[in-house]
């Protein structure tokens, strides 16, 4: 059954999109990630224009994030003060990101930059995660969180604030900077940025891992919401029909994933996630390096 997407201006198979959403939802439920980093490349892969894929991906992220955030909120795993600092940076970052997005769109280099950003970030994170989780398995249940990195330089920053829930006394500039970076990436790559934020908060800020996921979700909800609205205004590339199909699939998939996740051990799960992340990065890297079938492509400028 085909459905015509009003913004992407093409017909897609309903079950393909639902299935795609379901797969992403399953993985996000399994690994506790937003799954945005999978949605955009998969949408591009099935032929959705990259601009629509990235902008629609951002709006789709809101749904699983709200769902998971509420669960964490009830368990008291959200540091609102930390979240707000991340968010302040995030909104600023996403505004910069949307402007960069529009600029690259005009330059006709958007496609390459989106892919390149994915390769770099997914590659680095995937490798770090793989290394860390393999070490964890080898050492069998050693607390990784406690290995505090050297924070001499970061401690010297001004504007120190006490984050009670995170048990931290650090400069507010740190979370703002992290939020800024993640917001920019969210706008350009159509991702929530959890896969960057979570490791950064654990390893760089030294936040307890119990509070990290809920707090990052708080930031992700608002940043992806603001990215969606800004993309809707500047590039008009948010496809509501596509987003709703993805959300429908992912909501159900996430529940299946959650249940499957309870049977796996944390470190094993991180190895699987690392492999998945590296696979996506590898695939995109190949697309950048391999000689395209046709060196020429058309960019249309259809004003309506």
């Amino acid at each position, binding site marked *: 059954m085909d459905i015509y997407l009003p913004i992407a201006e093409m017909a897609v198979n309903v079950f393909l999109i639902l299935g795609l959403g379901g797969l992403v939802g399953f993985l996000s439920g399994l690994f506790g990630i937003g799954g945005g980093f999978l949605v955009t490349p998969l949408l591009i892969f099935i032929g959705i224009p990259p601009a629509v894929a990235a902008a629609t991906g951002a709006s789709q992220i809101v749904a699983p994030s709200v769902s998971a955030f509420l669960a964490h909120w009830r368990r008291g795993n959200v540091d609102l003060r930390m979240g707000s600092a991340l968010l302040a940076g995030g909104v600023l970052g996403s505004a910069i990101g949307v402007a960069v997005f529009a600029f690259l769109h005009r330059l*006709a280099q958007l496609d*390459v930059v989106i892919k390149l950003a994915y390769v770099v970030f997914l590659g680095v994170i995937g490798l770090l995660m793989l290394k860390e989780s393999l070490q964890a398995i080898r050492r069998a249940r050693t607390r990784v969180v406690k290995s505090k990195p050297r924070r001499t330089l970061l401690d010297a920053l001004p504007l120190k604030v006490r984050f009670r829930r995170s048990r931290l006394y650090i400069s507010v500039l740190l979370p703002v900077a992290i939020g800024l970076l993640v917001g920019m990436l969210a706008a350009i790559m159509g991702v929530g940025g959890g896969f960057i934020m979570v490791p950064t908060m654990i390893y760089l800020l030294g936040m307890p891992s119990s509070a990290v996921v809920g707090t990052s979700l708080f930031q992700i909800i608002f940043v992806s919401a603001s990215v969606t609205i800004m993309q809707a205004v500047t590039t*008009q590339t948010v496809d509501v029909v596509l987003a709703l199909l993805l959300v429908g699939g992912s909501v159900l998939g996430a529940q299946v994933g959650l249940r499957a996740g309870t049977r796996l051990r944390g470190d094993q799960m991180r190895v699987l996630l690392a492999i998945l992340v590296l696979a996506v990065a590898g695939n995109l890297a190949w697309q950048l390096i391999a000689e395209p079938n046709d060196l020429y492509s058309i960019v249309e400028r259809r004003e309506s």
Partner: protein
Amino acid sequence: MRGQARQGDGVGGRRLKRAVYALIVVLLAGASLATPRVGSADLVAALSSHLVAVTTGFSGSNVLLFGTTDGEGDVVVVVRGPEDVATVHRKGRYMGIWLNEADMAFAAVPGFWTIASSRPLAEISPGVAAFHQLGLEHLRLTPLESTSLRRITEFRQALIRNRQREGLYSTEPGQIVFLGNRLFRTDLWIPANAPIGTYTVAVFLVRDGDVVSAETTPLIVGKVGFEARVFEFAHRWAPLYGIIAVLLAAMAGWAANLAFRKD
């Protein structure tokens, strides 16, 4: 002649059979009346519908083109989609990565182009074919910059090749079928990815290698109903559209959380 056109309109989007049937009736009636005016009505053509409605379930659509000639010659039909600037980019390798390195913009490029004929196009004299743009090789594409002919040819061919791959430019001419020696018909396929806008359907009567008569009718490919409203809303009320997109997603997430809550 006018009677036929009106009949054609009235058929609307209904089945082809009915259109052909109606046409034959009109033709028979018209033939007896029109005999004295042969010279003025050597070519008459109409579409089964002037609107291709792009709805939620749109996956391409056939439009029936039918008409009559005064008996001699062949018919060629050219469908052109809405025109716009199209920029062709060429990728080049930089430090192992393929980047868009060169580009050329063409003015007034049809977003869709297809041709159909009742006889091989090769039999039309090249000069006439070039003048009326009968064939992709004769399609007039004007670059927005002045540059070498070789470079223009390179990008021009790339543009046509890309459009053909997308199914927007026809790779080989369609068939126009003559029913008897006056009545002709052909199906024009409008694919799901065809651009939205006003198309022109040009019908040529070719006799002894020359175009002796031509007729042009508009064909509109337009979003209707839900699709049209979503698109218009997204452009006219962009901020509100964005907010609604976010709220819909947030509500879906909230509903999921309530539905699958464990406690």
